[in-house]
């Protein structure tokens, strides 16, 4: 079971969190004309990298905040965690 550092609460066990997928996906802006392809990329297509992955976790049994976790998908090493409003371009 992973040990995840929540930037709001501190280190907590994985069973307090829900996984939320790739944190680098950006939702297309509202009311913007986009192609089927662009939309499909957003809804369905995800990379599944071996190694570093920036991903979302939701501290559902804690502070209810979504956080970003930089994790190695093969070793489970967690390099750093961020609040939801960090790392936004």
């Amino acid at each position, binding site marked *: *079971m992973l040990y995840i550092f929540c930037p709001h609460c501190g280190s907590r066990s994985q069973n307090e969190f829900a996984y939320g997928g790739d944190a680098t996906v950006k939702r297309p802006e*509202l009311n913007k004309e*986009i192609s089927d392809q662009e*939309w499909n990329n*957003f809804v*369905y297509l995800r990379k599944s990298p071996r190694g570093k992955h920036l991903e979302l976790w939701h501290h559902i049994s804690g502070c209810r905040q*979504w956080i970003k976790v930089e994790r190695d998908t093969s*070793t*489970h090493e967690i390099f750093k965690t961020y609040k*939801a409003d960090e790392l936004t371009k």
Partner: protein
Amino acid sequence: MSQDFRLDNIGKVNRNKKISFTFNKKKYFGYEGDTIASALIANGVHLVGRSFKYHRPRGFFGVGVDEPYAILQLERNNERDPNIRATEQEIFEGLEVKSVNCWPSVNFDIGAINNFLKMFFPAGFYYKTFMWPPSFWYKIYEPFIRMAAGFGEASIKHDKERYEHKYEYCDLLITGSGPSGLASAYAAAKNGARVILAEDKPRYGGSLLTSDVNIGNQTGAEWSEKIITELKSMSNVIVKNRSQVFGYYDHNMLVMSERISDHLPKTQRYLPKQRLWYIRAKEVLISSGSIERPLVFGNNDTPGVMLSSAAKEYMKVYGVLVGKKPLIFTNNDSGYETAIEFKKNGVNPLILDTRKDPSSDIISEAKNLGIEIKFSHVVVAAKGYKKVKSADIAKISDNKKDLSNIENIECDCICVSGFWTPSIHLASQSGNKSEFNEKIDAFIPKKSKQKEHTIGSANGKFTLEETIKEAFDKGYEISNKITENNNKVSIPTVVEKKSTEHDKFWCVPLPKGKSYKRFLDFQNDVAVTDIELALREGFRSIEHVKRYTTLGMATDQGKTSNLNGLQLVSDIENKVVPQVGHTTFRPPYTPVSIGAIVGREVGKHSKPTRKSPMHEWHEKNNAVFVDAGVWLRPRYYKQGNETLFEASKREAKNVRKNVGVCDVTTLGKIDVKGPDAAEFLNRVYTNAWLKLPVGKARYGVMLREDGIVMDDGTTTRISENHYHMTTTTAQAANVLSHLEYYLQLVWPELNVNVVSTTEQWAGAAIAGPNSRALLMKLFPNTDVSNEGLPFMGYKEGDLFGIPAKIYRISFSGELAYEVNVESDFGNFMWEKIIDIGKEFQIQPYGTEALSTLRIEMGHVAGSELDGRTIPHDASLEGLVSKKKDFIGKRSLSRSAFTKPDREKIVGVVPLDKTTSIPEGSYIVKDPNAKLPNPKLGHVSASCWSVEYDNPFSLAIIKDGKNMIGQKLFAMSPLKNKTIPVEIVSSHYVDPEGKRVRA
């Protein structure tokens, strides 16, 4: 009753407490502190089982977790506990155990014929023998394998024992209380670290309990006693015996199973049986020691052949002799310790040492004691079937290839020592890649992957001096890093007699003309010839050899067999062991009870049970409950001998005719607050929300980004910046997470907060033509007329002094209201409604009537919004705004969602107006079409329409819009029914929606 093999003045069992137990229905006795193994050996019993494949007689081989043979089954009150190691299970008064894997008895086992048919059971025999013909599988092969396989039978009864889970955090977890574990725990604890020290055996001390060493001015055993007593008294230390750390998982989480009551008779069981500890440790010291390696020779599986360290432990800890004519067969000094112990207890051993001319203090001591030693000698084969009777021994040449002077020697046990194998399992589980150490002919951990270090003999350090020093240093170093304290304890001096040299010899060659079976894996009956065959047949990777021959795959995970197997493969392949590599160790290190893993989350405790504040009232009024997610909801209120069908029909009819009340507390409720709340709802729901006035409710549908309906419900504008959202019972948690996701990550600029208020409000739906009249009596000071509180209106009211929220919304399709009060007043509200409602013929109704009412109205619920439907499919397209954007909108224009014959909800009525259509039935055009019959769609929900008094169903079918009026068929292959039906509108009752607005 005397015990022939019990020694008088030695051992740690409690001689003042005799304990009787039965083994294979025969009564024996032992002493408190005995294991089944030690008690049986004391009684001269060595035959305890039959081997897995050949059903050869099985005795005891070890004295702890490494035991490959003595796997028994505990039986009590028709309950069975299989896969019990006799070397670990302590006896208690009334214990009943029996042998497994033998029929009809351990003494006469029919399956032993396999032993004489062994040419038919070579490596991979399962793959070869049971391949052909396929038709033999069910009737012949499978029953045969099932009868022959396994180490006992699981109980089919509910396990009534209690198992606990515990979460613990510490600075340092130490696995094993041998010299390295004790020393490191002491050093770290004295330096202020929070330490957990886990020992799998009942007694602490590990090898110190049995070895002849001195630490400081005390014997090893005395020193360990002193250290453990002090550790137990320290508040920063948890010391646990009978506790096996069996798994090393990610981020330094280790799992330990503590056997709390396994050694106690049932009458004392106010304690849990076992406790599973989830331990998150900042650092881990693996001090799990090492396991003695067998030597391989002919018939080395005969009962009476055992590890020399085990023989010594049976004497020193249990006061039990494993034999009175022992043969010690060793390639190192460890065998001498056992021989000396025999001698001290009045038994004359014979030592066969494979080495030519070794020397050490302990060898001199053995010589001085007059123990007979034959150097350059080996055991060629054990003789005897159910117990060792003698052994063929021989002189072996210097190159270890040729045998000479073969002679037969009488003996009743053969104690073998092929040096020591570090227990690297936990280190390996942590991700540490091990490396082969030539000096000890075994693998030791390499570079740490997690925060773990291995110390002592688990790390290949076999001298006590080295071990103690390393352990004290590590304990200090790690604790210093964590606590930043500098309290260093002094390291005691150590006296040890044996040297750590060993002979690189492990397998005795076969004499000319002999074909003795020489076993490598004792639990799975894997012999030298099996490995040779596997290699001849082309298996090369050690992982493949393992699976083909089943070497190391039994419940003991090859604790005694792995290295000898590797040695053999590398010898045949002319490689060195590191090139062959070894198989991966995975958790658990020892078998763990399923019960311990499950803990207390069994039966109704497998998930929480949520009850509404009115639950007790429902119970008192004969409610029959149904699981709705984790909630318990009344399904119907039983009157007299009513069936579900009769009761739900009565309740639903009463709603249509008079008035009913339904507990809707379970609906998800979310408070949405903030200046941007309207804008947020406008993006979340498919319809428009910006212009909803205060005091009004609106029905809304929300989608996932892929266009599929996620949930529906009404949301009410309580005040300018405050909305009360309701969700379905099932989706409440998901919707909250969904809203938080968009607020925190996608549109953080929106100033909105959401919070679940599901448990803050108790809800009652009052539905039926009499509902307004009832409401006027409940809220005499509030204008609830059609003008004062119109359809989809909201008002606050005063319910006999209790503040209430009144929503005029309807799921039943009747004139209806939902009244919410704070949860604590839920029961008060409910009783008032029932009490005052009497004059309006009120009846409570459950979820079954609720379903009936919504189905015949064509209102969709979870069975239609099943994660596959878009708004169009549920006839909700009118709620999809064309003007504004919202979550999932872009997906709705994808081609699959816009094709003209897209599925759509319809109503289904059987032509005979009497046959109910099973939910899940297919709708087809031709019931006799060739299979697979193309289906148009499926029936999502069925009820008995109380309005028309005939069956009615909802279905989602292809081109539903144009199917209305068609005569089709509903087919249920499960129920074997084909029902001619007519497709009608899904709005079966009151399609104009007049009643809700009345």
